């Protein structure tokens, strides 16, 4: 496929890797922010192509991993109602709540439908006027414009039976939280290319300056990721901390202004709870007051109450770059993809699931 295969050519990947070997003289710890990048790194064995001095740690950019236990519990409560059709991206069905998961609700007869796009949920609402249709709107800046558009279209179509359970996250405040945490090991970042396709990358400049970390906007294919590492390592070796754009084929400085406009129309910035990590100021999105009628939490009177996560999952430490999946005592034992104890074992973009799935992988695929 065009714009995929050419970025996976083994020789090209190895050539960039050789250039990284040539440039590096000291140990560096670099975090890739997005779960899609984590998946590619593990799948294509990119860590093994890097010099031993470079360690990649895996950031919090997997929405399935960071959606809070409280929101999962609310999703389970709403999806269990007989008057509700609950629409969700497939990965969310297996995320453990305090008690069971959405799949358990479905097995017990709950009407839960997996969708690929919020527009499908909108269609379900149009087709089922006598049911309450709730869409589980999770994600980062990349997904938020799709959800904002679903709200705008629902308003235009005067749909009264459609609402969203919103769990939306913003990347820059998470990067800031990681940089300012005591004991932070991360010296440079590969920023999530598709988040920047929406938001641009001006927001990252003050972070790079203040925390003295190079930030490279990076794509998702092996060649992209290794070039992102190269652009990061070159800066680290020279003591430079700039924001660079590796992924210029899809990202420009200002991002997608059309999408930003609809985002601002529909959502407000608010504090947000990240599973395993805790609350981060101004790191999430909420429906604006004018669209509060689309808020499923409000519509179904969801209380804010979930106990602490007692599973023993260390996802928060993994997503802050402090530990790796293999450091978790439950990895591959009590926690496996068939029976996940924590959220990063669920989705293919979760670091634990990626490590588990490709645990025998050591070289780059060449297809």
């Amino acid at each position, binding site marked *: 496929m065009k714009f*995929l295969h050419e970025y996976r050519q083994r020789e090209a990947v190895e050539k960039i890797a050789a250039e990284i070997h040539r440039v590096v003289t000291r140990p560096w710890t670099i975090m890739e922010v997005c779960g899609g990048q984590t998946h590619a790194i593990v799948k294509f064995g990119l860590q093994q192509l890097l010099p031993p001095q470079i360690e990649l740690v895996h950031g919090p950019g997997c929405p399935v991993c960071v959606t809070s236990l409280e929101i999962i519990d609310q999703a389970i409560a709403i999806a269990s109602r007989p008057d509700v059709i609950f629409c969700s991206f497939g990965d969310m069905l297996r995320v453990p709540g305090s008690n069971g998961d959405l799949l358990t609700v479905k097995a017990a007869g709950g009407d839960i439908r997996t969708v690929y796009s*919020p527009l499908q949920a909108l269609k379900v609402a149009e087709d089922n006027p006598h049911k309450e249709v709730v869409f589980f709107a999770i994600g980062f800046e990349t*997904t938020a*414009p*799709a959800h904002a*558009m679903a709200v705008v279209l629902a308003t235009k179509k005067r749909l009264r039976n459609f609402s969203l359970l919103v769990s939306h996250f913003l990347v820059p405040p998470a990067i800031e939280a990681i940089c300012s945490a005591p004991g932070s090991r991360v010296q440079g970042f590969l920023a999530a290319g598709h988040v920047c*396709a929406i938001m641009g990358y001006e927001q990252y400049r003050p972070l790079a300056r203040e925390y003295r970390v190079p930030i490279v906007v990076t794509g998702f294919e092996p*060649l992209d990721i290794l070039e992102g590492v190269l652009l990061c390592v070159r800066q680290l070796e020279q003591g430079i901390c700039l924001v660079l754009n590796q992924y210029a*084929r899809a990202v420009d400085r200002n991002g997608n202004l059309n999408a930003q406009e609809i985002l601002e129309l529909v959502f407000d910035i608010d504090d947000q709870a990240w599973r395993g990590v805790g609350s981060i100021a101004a790191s999430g999105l909420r429906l604006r007051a004018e669209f509060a009628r689309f808020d499923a939490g409000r519509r179904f009177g969801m209380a804010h109450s979930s106990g602490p996560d007692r599973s023993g999952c260390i996802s928060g430490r993994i997503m802050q770059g402090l530990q790796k999946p293999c450091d978790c005592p439950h990895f591959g034992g009590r926690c496996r993809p068939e029976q996940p104890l924590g959220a990063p074992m669920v989705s293919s973009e979760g670091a634990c699931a990626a490590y588990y799935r490709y645990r025998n992988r050591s070289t780059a695929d060449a297809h």
Partner: protein
Amino acid sequence: MCLGIPGRVEELLNESPLERSARVNFGGICKEINLAYVPEAREGDYVIVHVGFAISRVREQEAHRIFRYLERIGELGELQ
């Protein structure tokens, strides 16, 4: 769920601004995709698609940059 993938705009299906959509081809699999956020995208263009929405048009010129770089640092011959 969070992957964005490139696809080729084959045929515009709806021209009304918020619901502007097209049939987009992902290596042989076609889907109807909302193009409201990339009003500049035309048939034949590649777009990055995420949860049913095109979020950015792929700039072909920029897409070749890394290969020009590889050519500079070494023997592109190997790639062909």
